[in-house]
């Protein structure tokens, strides 16, 4: 009913190939964008910004980066956390060495460092595949975290070995550090996330995206039709690591404010990988759904007992929370092994033909 496509005629090829051939999709996206850009900033409390909105966006972006590599190009990676770390440390070094630099520019530039590192660790992908490649990226994970600990130049020889985000401003408005208002931090994150999401949607629909998909589906066949596998795989590593690096910079600069090396350790990689898998590999939307489920939902669940006035221990809530979220993950994966994005796709298809299924 709501999703009726009757009457939406396409008279040109261009219209048929548009980003949203169904009008309702475009409207829905418009509503979400208005929510994100206008309604949330006007209504959200500081807690909502810091505990839900900013982390969900940051993790969505990290998962988006991983999805380019794993979901679109089919190269399994377990080094996401470390690549996020490269972005964060690069950004930290840039703003401390060049304090005049615009922090948003620094965040966007920091991705190039992780892209470089990503390509370096992506080279083995030319020879090895699947689980073996996962082990090679795991090496990146261990090596880089070790490097963050041992190379004291990276954290400016701080006694604590942690990096602290300085207060940085653009035209007198603080955008990072403790002086920054949550809403400003949110807008920075939202701006970067929106920008990179648009880039990714277009990339994955274009020539490069099709090359990646061909590589993922069968690399020998792809090679036979003339795709340069080296180029395809290494661009996937570069672009994926770029996005992941930017997400890492945002993770520290717009959200946490301080980080020690071990926050970039393997649990972070797994968390991002789980978001990508539960959201749906090979989809853009899935990253947002997955991040909302894995990052956002536990926070909301934590608030529920207090909201209903149920007197229950905080530690007990945490235990229940882990059980509920774990249960939901299992449930969603049984209902739809291809992730939440696929679930939405099915619902949408059903809605389009409703109430007359063929």
């Amino acid at each position: 009913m709501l999703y009726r496509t009757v009457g939406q005629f396409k008279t040109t090829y261009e219209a048929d190939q548009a980003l949203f051939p169904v009008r309702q999709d475009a409207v829905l996206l418009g509503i979400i964008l208005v929510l994100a850009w206008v309604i949330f900033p006007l209504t959200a409390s500081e807690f909502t910004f810091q505990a839900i909105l900013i982390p969900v966006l940051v993790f969505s972006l990290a998962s988006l980066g991983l999805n380019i590599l794993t979901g679109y190009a089919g190269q399994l990676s377990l080094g996401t956390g470390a690549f996020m770390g490269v972005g964060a440390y690069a950004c930290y070094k840039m703003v401390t060495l060049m304090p005049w630099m615009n922090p948003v520019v620094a965040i966007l530039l920091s991705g190039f460092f992780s892209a470089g590192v990503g390509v370096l660790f992506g080279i083995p992908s030319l020879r090895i595949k699947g689980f073996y490649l996962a082990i090679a990226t795991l090496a990146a994970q261990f090596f880089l975290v070790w490097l963050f600990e041992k190379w004291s130049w990276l954290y400016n020889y701080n006694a604590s070995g942690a990096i602290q985000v300085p207060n940085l401003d653009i035209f007198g408005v603080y955008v990072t550090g403790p002086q920054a208002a949550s809403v400003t931090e949110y807008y920075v994150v939202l701006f970067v996330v929106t920008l990179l999401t648009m880039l990714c949607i277009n990339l994955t629909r274009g020539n490069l995206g099709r090359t990646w998909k061909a590589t993922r589906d069968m690399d020998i066949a792809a090679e036979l039709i003339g795709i340069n596998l080296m180029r395809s795989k290494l661009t996937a590593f570069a672009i994926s690591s770029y996005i992941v690096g930017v997400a890492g910079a945002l993770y520290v600069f717009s959200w946490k404010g301080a980080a020690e090396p071990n926050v970039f350790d393997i649990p972070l990689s797994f968390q991002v990988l789980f978001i990508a898998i539960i959201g749906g590999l090979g989809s853009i939307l899935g990253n947002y759904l997955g991040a909302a489920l894995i990052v956002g939902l536990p926070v909301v669940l934590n608030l529920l007992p207090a909201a209903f006035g149920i007197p229950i221990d905080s530690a007990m809530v945490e235990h229940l929370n882990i059980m509920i979220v774990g249960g939901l993950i299992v449930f969603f994966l049984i209902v739809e092994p291809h992730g939440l994005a696929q679930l939405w796709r099915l619902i949408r298809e059903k809605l389009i033909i409703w109430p007359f299924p063929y």
Partner: protein
Amino acid sequence: MKHFTKWAVAAVVAGVTAGSAMAQELYAPNLAYRTGPFAATGIPLMNGQADYLTMLNERDGGIGGIRINGEECETGYSTEKGVECYEKTKSKAIVTQPWSTGITLQVLPKTNVDEIPILAPGYGFSPMADGTTFQWAFNTPSGYWDAADMIVQYLEGQGSLDGKTIAFLHLDHPYGKEPIPVLEKLAGEKGFELEPIPVGLKEMQNQSAQWLQIRRLRPDYVVMWGWGAMNAGAITEAVKTKFPMENFLGVWWAGHDADLKIVGEDGKGYKSISWSFPNPDAPVMADIQTHVVDKGLTKSNAEEMSGVFYSRGLIISAILAEGIRVAQEEYGTAEIDASQLRWGLENINMTEERISELGLDGMVPPFQTSCANHTGHSGGWMLEWDGEKFVKVSDLLTPNVAGYQDLIDEKAAEYAEANAPWAMNEECNVTN
């Protein structure tokens, strides 16, 4: 069934307190960790903290006639949850207790903007001692640099350190690296050789490589800055490699009874510096027994309550309560706010008389804070494991703060500069 009644009682009590809480209370949240990899050490500390506040609420109806709500927010020692909890509690909180060096580092700059005092007793960033720079942060009664100094003092009492080797076994983490600047400075002054041996977070339970290195080094002493599973790992490994336990010392967080009980008699001689000590005969313990334990309001048990960590949690709450009381007296109101509590915490004067008035005899050394000195540098005792429990083996050791005061000032200034613009306490004209 027994559990069910317990829960039901707890639910009713919590319901009643929640109901009355609406009326009037001071909200002093605690970012607790009763879950996750460090839960074993967290639970006794949290129980001690909670029980002391419950005792005050039950016995005196709170402090100055107002009840204290020491609600816990579970972090599981994770820095991400720490941010969540801090943001969740900060609107009504008069204090924040971050409970991990990682969370402290994250919350420290924010509290300076949000104007909420951080109470981080015995942990966190050592330069927080400089109260003019860190006007909202308190690590009473002693910081890590004090601990390092006292340990070296104690070792010097056993004979000159000139030409000796001290292996510094530490967690490779901001927490473990904290004392290195002071230890290096002392190494230069006293002529001993410092050999830092880091233990990665992933190797905490398997330290065979580190202990092989220690065997090869043959150090005269091993000083440990460990936490969580690392302590038990190191102690069992030391027993296995037959390292003489009397030459093995740890910071206060490495003196958990449960870690030593694993090795029992073999751990005899292991030492840990501490600014708290369990005294089962102290009047406060009797009060907790009547007002908390007998009423079934505790989550603790007798064995845990006789341990070092439970009593440390208790002391931490006592320091907080004392800060609240001082602030209430100064401002003449029971309902103090965050900035008034800040004044209270920097004007604590825990004299021997006050300590015994509070019924904490022998559980904490006397100390005094000021606007320039947010640590108090109480000093501490060297505790030794006698095979069953920890006993005091030294008189009160006091840190020689003058020896590293310039280091405190330097690091505090560095921090303020890196976090510019940083609000300092300009009014404070006391020097320590």
